[in-house]
């Protein structure tokens, strides 16, 4: 964004002000995440940069909070991580299956009441989580599924499907239906056509929807707070409890791990998005 040479001085000044504002906003967005990283290596128990850390004294840094996270006595993080992964994986599988099939139906031009049905399918994403939490809790309590893994997985399928429906519908919007007709005319039955032709083409959309569903489930705390018993504790619940009671550096160690995980997911999602756009011939 270099300015042309003939730019008048006061526009030049405006331009630099504009760039400064942009820089400040980017800093505001990203900087808070980087506070957690160094503090999680703090040798002391306080959540401020000690004098030693400011001097970059090696003794001021330690891995003790990571040790505490993994080996600490009466430590909830192991169980929480196990539960979180189990719940998120099953919720993702459920969301992807239900969501992809529904997106296939929704993208058909024969689909009746498309707008209305789409509105219902997307609603769990729009309705405030606290309301979803109350409603789902009432259902699970009646169905006897409160404080069970099954109940939480079902709840997370509800919250995760809108993302899959949206991403897969978006992928299908650029889908050339003549390839499936070609397959059919060559004698392939619908299931075979789907597995061999449609699925490979829409796979990037399905996977990125799955990533959204995974992250939604993995991060979700409001609904789980209503549903979970002691046995079903998850990482977000432990973080929530920790943040409410006492902000300990162990939480920052966990948070650092979560930031690394989200970076990995971000990179995967970006690569998939680009691949999907390349496949669909969109060059932006």
């Amino acid at each position, binding site marked *: 964004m270099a300015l042309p040479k003939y730019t008048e001085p006061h526009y030049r000044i405006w331009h630099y002000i504009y*760039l400064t*504002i*942009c820089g400040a*906003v*980017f800093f*505001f*967005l990203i900087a*808070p*995440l980087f*506070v*957690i990283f160094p503090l999680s290596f703090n040798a002391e128990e*306080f959540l*401020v*940069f000690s004098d030693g850390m400011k001097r970059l004294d090696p003794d001021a840094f330690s891995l003790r909070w990571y040790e505490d996270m993994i080996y600490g006595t009466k430590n909830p993080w192991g169980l929480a991580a196990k539960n979180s992964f189990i719940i998120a994986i099953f919720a993702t599988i459920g969301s992807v299956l*239900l969501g992809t*099939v*529904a997106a296939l*139906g*929704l993208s*058909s031009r*024969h*689909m009746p009441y498309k707008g209305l*049905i789409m509105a*219902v*399918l*997307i*609603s*769990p994403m729009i*309705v*405030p*989580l*606290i*309301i979803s*939490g*109350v*409603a*789902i809790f*009432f*259902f699970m309590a009646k169905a006897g599924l409160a404080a069970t893994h099954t109940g939480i997985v079902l*709840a997370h*399928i*509800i919250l995760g*499907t809108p993302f899959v429906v*949206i*991403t897969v*519908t978006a992928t299908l919007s650029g889908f050339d239906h003549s390839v499936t007709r070609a397959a059919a005319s060559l004698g392939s039955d619908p299931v075979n056509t789907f597995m061999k032709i449609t699925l490979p083409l829409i796979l990037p959309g399905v996977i990125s929807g799955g990533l*959204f569903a995974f*992250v939604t489930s993995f*991060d979700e705390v*409001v609904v789980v*707070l209503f549903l979970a018993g002691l046995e079903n504790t998850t990482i*977000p619940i432990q*973080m929530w409890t920790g*943040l*409410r009671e006492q902000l300990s550096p162990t939480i920052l160690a966990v*948070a650092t791990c*979560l930031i690394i995980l*989200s*970076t990995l997911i*971000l990179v995967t999602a970006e690569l998939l998005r680009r691949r999907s756009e390349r496949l669909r011939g969109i060059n932006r």
Partner: protein
Amino acid sequence: MSSENKQILTTDGIPLEVSLKKAERKNKIKAFLLVAPLLLFLIITYVFPIGDMLLRSVDDKMVTQMLPKTFKAMEKWDGQELPEEEVFAAFHQDFIKLVEEKREGKLSTQLNYTKNGFKSIIKKLRRASKKFEEGNYKEQIMSVHKRWADVEYWRAIKRRAPEVTSQKYLKAMDMYTNEEGKIVSVDEDRRIHRILWLRTLEIAFFVTVFCFLMAYPIAHLLATLPMKYSNLLMICVLLPFWTSLLVRTASWMILLQQQGIVNDFFVGIGLVADDNRPEMMYNKTGSYVAMTQILLPFMVLPLYSVMKTISPSLMRAGKSLGGTPFIAFWKVYFPLTIPGIGAGCLLVFILAIGYYITPALVGGASGTLISNQIAFHMKSTLDWSFASAMGLMLLTGVLVIYWLYNKIVGIDNIKLG
């Protein structure tokens, strides 16, 4: 196609029109069957339970079922003078049954919601009722406590006769039905819910405004920079978007604490004295700052996707026709971004209005929203019908905005990432 014309037939002799319609219907059913599993799943586990909330929020069967005979006898009572012996006798019958089932405590809690002072007189009545003699219950009950001889208390009981009630909704608006059956507001200093509703709207509104003001320049920069730079900067938007909400809230808790980095910075530049560090967390400021940063990506992404489609030649054309860059921006560029602004603002507003986690952690007492109140009644007071009522009021507001969003943007146009 009129029937007099010769109909076009398919090879098996069926008119083409019929055959096409049949194929069309078949396709419709096929498409619907694909959507059906998810739709059914959501209706059972999600849509019906929201309906269940509606039933709970107006449900008032409990007292109706505890005092069936009393309410039957009260039907003829006009509520002016004390009721007749008949009502007292019926009440005595109901009450004895409740005592046998050990449910009189529940009755007193329920009636106490309607009018204060029932708890103690029901306890007294339970003790006295063991020595009651047959007949003339009116005298006997009235002699237990002077409040039993007060017509106000009998009116309060009668008000609980209907099976449905709007009391929970009135309570959410800090109103109630008084002794004369009029809807009035509670005392000025007890109007907590109105404050919460207004604060929720206020915080959601200003967070939306702040997000817009911050997102617009950076979305513009991202859309106009060459790909290789903008991709890098895009990570600054997407990384927070993908990072756990609790992690981001935790980072604000570290930054905003009294000995935190933001305060250190203010002290460092001499803005505040070291011994007079301002409280930036556990109040409204905390909610504003953290919510704005957390919701910012939801504003940037729709703005960016709209700005990306605006050709830079339009601005050049505007300038070459004699507009200064500001006029060209205001008359050409800005109007073209309005769809993105609408989408981003509605999305952020919807998300902000139902926010729960962040205000609960950094909002303190003055920065909490209506969602926190709903959670409080769900988990602490266990007044689920009240929580349902407030939840549905919030939901109605959100659905109105959702409907607007659908009109303006169209839900099929939601883009993620």
